[in-house]
């Protein structure tokens, strides 16, 4: 589970990217983090994963404080960033092996997982090539595989569906469901409402650094009807697709 309490982040002293947000993401749920472009989604995710330090507030992942207990907290999650352009000159298989080394996975275990993941994401033919030869979608897949190879309890995914073909997108959603059903946590951001509607147990909506809504999908629809500004947001989110 992820506990975010009272977290803020300001850039250059003026731009308040994230403004005093608090969220609890429970075990066993897929949690969608919704908001238009520039709402503060990525900044929040960067703070959860230890890439940025919050100006105030605390973040705990499975009870480990990312600021105080950094390394243990980092071992709890796997992270798929929004741009998959990294380690381009490593071969796919080398990247997966590197990630498995970093997370201390045994040879046998990693071999089985890589085989299974390559099969499910149809990447067996590409593993021997350098990542720079991959298309955007394939790069996205290899990064996702790099996370799944160490089978972390908490998944944190920043816009994971972008660039995926329908089949891989379906596979990923399926795997997210399986993961949550085994009482683990999936936290992902999207600016596409439809995606969230299909798979999320709960969602939070962020805009201009503030959480406007957090709850179940049915509640969200109710909420939209009453609240005009939320309704506008809702329209924006649906229009994006």
């Amino acid at each position, binding site marked *: 589970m992820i506990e975010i309490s009272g977290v803020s982040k300001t850039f250059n002293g003026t731009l308040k990217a994230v403004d005093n947000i608090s969220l609890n993401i429970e075990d066993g749920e897929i949690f969608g983090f919704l908001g238009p472009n520039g709402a503060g989604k990525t900044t929040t995710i960067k703070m959860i994963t230890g890439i940025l330090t919050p100006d105030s507030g605390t973040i705990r992942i499975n009870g480990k404080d990312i600021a105080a207990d950094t390394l243990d907290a980092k071992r709890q999650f796997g992270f798929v960033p929004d741009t998959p352009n990294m*380690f381009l000159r490593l071969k796919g298989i080398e990247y997966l092996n590197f990630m498995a080394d970093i997370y201390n996975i045994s040879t046998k275990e990693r071999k089985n997982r890589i085989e299974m993941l390559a099969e499910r994401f149809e990447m067996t033919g590409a593993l021997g090539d350098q990542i720079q030869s991959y298309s955007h979608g394939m790069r996205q897949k290899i990064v996702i595989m790099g996370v799944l190879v160490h089978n972390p309890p908490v998944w944190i995914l920043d816009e994971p569906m972008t660039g995926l073909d329908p089949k891989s997108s379906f596979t990923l959603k399926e795997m997210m469901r399986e993961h949550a059903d085994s009482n683990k946590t999936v936290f992902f951001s999207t600016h596409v409402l439809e995606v969230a509607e299909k798979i999320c147990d709960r969602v939070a909506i962020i805009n201009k650094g503030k959480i406007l809504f957090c709850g179940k999908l049915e509640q969200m629809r109710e909420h939209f009807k009453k609240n005009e500004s939320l309704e506008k947001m809702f329209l924006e989110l649906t229009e994006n697709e």
Partner: protein
Amino acid sequence: MNNTITLIKIFFKSGSGEISKKKKVTIALFAFILFFSFLPIAIGIGFFFSEAYDIMKLINQEAVLTALALAVSAIVIFFFGIFYVLNSFYFSSDVEYLLPLPLRPTEILTSKFIQVAVYEYLTELVVLLPVFISFGIKSSAGLPFYIYALIIFLTLPVIPLVFASLIIMILMRFSGLFKNKDRFRMISGIIAVFIGAGLNAFFQRFNQDTLNPEKIYNIADSSFTSIASKIFPGIRWGADALAHSSELSGLISMAVFLVISVAAFAIFILAGNALYFKGVLNLSGNTAKRKKMTGRDLSKNVAKSSVMKAYIVKELKLLIRTPVYFINCILMNFIWPLMLLVVMLAESNFTKTLDETRKFISGSQNYGLIAAIGFTFIMFLVSSNGVTSTAISREGQNLFVCKYLPVRYKDQILAKVFSGVAVSMIGLLMVVIVAIAVLRVPPVIILVTVVAGLLGALFNAITGIMMDLANPKLNWDNEQRAVKQNFNLLYNMLLGSAFGGIALLAQIYFNLKFGVFSASVIVILLLLDAVLYRIILVKGVRMFEKLEN
């Protein structure tokens, strides 16, 4: 035409990026250092031609000298041109953005051609300008000479560049030779280094030969010049124009030279229209095999290792596989020992010098000095590789990956330091091989320099990463900028070389015994390394934590 001018502006702007005040100072400093490192070569060439002029004047053959100068320049321009053209026309990242724009091939080609020509002017500043100056002064030439010289300076690159681009455009259109960008950059980088070493040896020889008219005439009128003038047809006319600048025939020659240059450029445009786009479009840069991985392949590629080892291997793989990193960080270790060899081999009485050197080295009273020279050279070598002084910058926009991986910053820094030391060890090994095989340096000196060299490499690796942690260059779209435009590399090289230089000066000044020199260098380095190690673990980690992009 407007499009062409806009494109030229963009090419030069995107090369420099936005320039802050602080950066201006560093750029000025860099230009200053660059200027003074090429100045001796330029002055050397100037003096050579001025002496040669006196001698050739005796037999009224001074005109061959201008022909020689133009021929040499044209050939140098041609060789550089091959690389410039390939890089600028085909491999530069802007090509992908230009292709979809509604631009005619002529516009792209013309602007790229001018961009490359401007780079060549820098070459000419070193190779050709000194000749013009010394020739002008010696022959007390009038205004027409300088006007012709200026025109030739500006137009000389045209013909050799047309040749270079024709060759490249045909190759790129019809052969799969350079389909793989990475491989090409790697190979061309290595070739360029060897051409550099070759030219160096050539000039060394040249300088040592005593000047006599016959010899100079032979060189100048040799097949070399005549072949060059045959390949690059304008050269003869250009040389004629300069030699007879005060006569009508000079003016005619000048006109012919310009007509040939313009015709060459026209041929370039015509050929370019037919060849360029198709060649560029062929370049997908994709050489992936997409071979299915079997269970056996998988077992071969998948094996557990420690976090530290995995991280170091990753660093080294990226260094070796990224052409710019390979050339600037790895190849450097081979270049300098190789240069040392070339300089020695270029001596006209090589065997005699070698014998004398070996005799000097075997004299035990010289051990201290020899160890100091060896150590200084190694310090220069290990500090020039830039592995750690660009280690953080090379992460670029992907620095965030270092932040979310569950690896302590301390370990990440150490992995980067160790990969730097590992690369330095290649250089050290090269020096040891040359020292044992060629110079027959006694084992005890080898031992001391290796130990001191390793400690020095560690020292330099740590100072390098501290500099890069303090001021990394993270915002780049092209790997070249992470390394080549990174001043940390330069600063760390200066620091390492200065350290070696001080050791050498101290040895020369105090004339220390071998034992004393070795012991003090090793002890000082041990202390420094220990202190720096502590600093990196505390301050370095804190700096790494604070880095955000």
